[in-house]
């Protein structure tokens, strides 16, 4: 990088302009999130200047954490949060098992048609998912599965499967085939090779696929509002959307709900930003 920079000297003026541009875009990206956080802690009186000076965008004068308690109680956000976690976790588990097995079956065992099969799975990257909503909904209602968490877990797993296979295949390429050969000579069958040798070496793929699937499930709305949306339980995005109807006048609790629904992804992003970025790049560059 140092070497690069000495060659890529930029003039002072372009450099200043460039950083102004970057600073501006940083502000455009951060401000809505900052504002969401600050208004979640304010009262309407403070926001709109009723009986006190207006403070729409500044830091809260008094930090009203009570807004969070209100949001959690009224919207049953705790329960919705738990549902979202459980549904995401189960979908991640299924995607991981299915995509690791399928990738192994297509790249490590030689058979005619493995290439074609892989292309078949990659169709899932371009198909608009909404197109499956009505048949899935009608089938689930027929067997009485709507409003059960399973009704969301399985479709979610199906939607992330193509990406799971794509990412896993990329990582599996990096594991030398000699390992498989050696295991075979030692009398190890394909299943034992898969479980004891390949899977432990796929840890980076596991985290990348897991995070990708998590983001898909956590933020999904259309299927969640159709297949799993009752007074007994819903996911966080659906719950937050409903809360909005009840609290149109009181901004603080709405902001609190928005923050509660957002912070898990932001925390995960802070920890795993590299994996997350890689998973998005892998999908585009190889797909």
């Amino acid at each position, binding site marked *: 990088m140092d070497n690069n920079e000495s060659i890529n000297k930029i003039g002072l003026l372009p450099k200043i302009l460039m950083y102004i541009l970057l600073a501006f875009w940083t502000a455009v990206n951060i401000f809505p999130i900052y504002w969401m956080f600050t208004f979640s802690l304010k009262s309407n009186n403070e926001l709109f200047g009723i009986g006190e000076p207006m403070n729409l965008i500044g830091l809260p004068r008094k930090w009203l954490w009570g807004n969070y308690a209100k949001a959690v109680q009224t919207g049953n956000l705790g329960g919705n949060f738990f549902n979202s976690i459980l549904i995401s976790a189960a979908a991640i588990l299924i995607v991981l098992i299915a995509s690791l097995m399928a990738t192994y079956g297509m790249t490590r065992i030689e058979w005619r048609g493995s290439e074609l099969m892989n292309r078949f799975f990659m169709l899932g990257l371009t198909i608009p998912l909404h197109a499956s909503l009505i048949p899935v909904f009608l089938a689930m209602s027929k067997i009485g599965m709507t409003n059960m968490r399973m009704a969301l877990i399985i479709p979610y797993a199906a939607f992330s499967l193509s990406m799971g296979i794509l990412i896993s295949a990329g990582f599996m390429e990096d594991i030398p085939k000699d390992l498989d050969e050696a295991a075979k000579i030692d009398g190890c069958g394909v299943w034992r090779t898969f479980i004891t040798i390949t899977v432990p070496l796929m840890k980076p793929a596991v985290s990348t696929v897991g995070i990708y699937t998590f983001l898909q499930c956590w933020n999904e709305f*259309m299927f969640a509002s159709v297949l799993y949306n009752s007074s007994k339980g819903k996911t966080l995005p659906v719950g937050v959307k409903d809360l909005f109807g009840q609290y149109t006048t009181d901004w603080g609790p709405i902001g609190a709900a928005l923050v509660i629904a957002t912070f898990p992804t932001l925390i995960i992003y802070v920890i795993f930003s590299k994996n997350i970025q890689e998973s998005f790049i892998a999908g585009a560059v190889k797909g």
Partner: protein
Amino acid sequence: MDGVELMKKKVFTGVNVFLFLLPALILFIGFLILPIITSGYYSFLDLNLRNLNDPKVFCGWDNYRYVFSDTLKLGKAIVNALILAGLSVFIQLPISLLLALVLGRGIKGERLFLSIFFVPVLISTIIIGQLFIKIYYPGDGILAQLLDSIHLAAPKGYVFNPSDAIQPVECTRALCFFKGKDHITLHQQIGIWLNNADAAAVAAGTKKFATEQYPVQWLGSKYLQLGCCFIPILWQYVGYHMLLLYAGVKSVPPELREAAKLDGATDGQINRYIVIPHIKSIIKICVIFAVTGSLKSFDLFFSMLNGQVGTAADVPGTLLYNQMFNANNYGTGSAIAVMLIVMCFAFALIISAIFKKED
């Protein structure tokens, strides 16, 4: 005997392959491929909540005729989605490309900027929609306050019964600015200032807003709501395209850059003649994602307009949801779904062909 052994081995391999693929196949075929084929079948049936358990009636192209009719106006929704696609390709992607080129050439704080610019992509679109409802909030939202603070628009408009020919000075100035005209008609003012229901009431003479203070209904007005929905979508996904393009820019061999630099090429020339041709395949993918993503968009429109349809901001996704969930008409809903699939594949092929032709 060799033949038998070989046969045995082949069968054994076959069984293993099948077992390895089984979970993925069940998920993929059962919950994606079969439902989509079924959608195609349903789109030719008269299928709604009432006759769900009866033998279904085959109704030919009726569902397609219905969705394109004046009742549902799928055609207009598709046009809206295509406008969004155009804005994505010609406004969002150039911004993403500019950021990717700036970050990809190697500057201080490159990783930090990259990470920050990607943050909006991770937030649920439903949440973004709710947040922007607050930003657009009539009178008290950030947008209204911002416009007020720079004296561009009065945050409170004045709306009149059309028969009262009063010229509201303050809001006329702002509106003329947006429309680039000296004056606009009172009718236009009412359309912009009022939400759709109130505007209709005024036009019908059932409601008066005589010199009443009335804030701009950013999301309620038929002139403004579509544009107001586009802005958050364009904003949210700049970071996504930027990340993909950045990965491409980073894959340009440094020697190429250095050689060009030694030959006296400027940054602009390097980008134009080396980097952009090198990342053409990624640009193609971004264009495909931008167009198909626009066609499929749903969450933000649904969130910001609270699930209403029949507005100026209908898109195929919201119509599909409405046919299914509110009208309980699964046949017409499926027809919309089929149109979506056909359009997504068609545009992906067309865009690929355009890029191929340019080579």
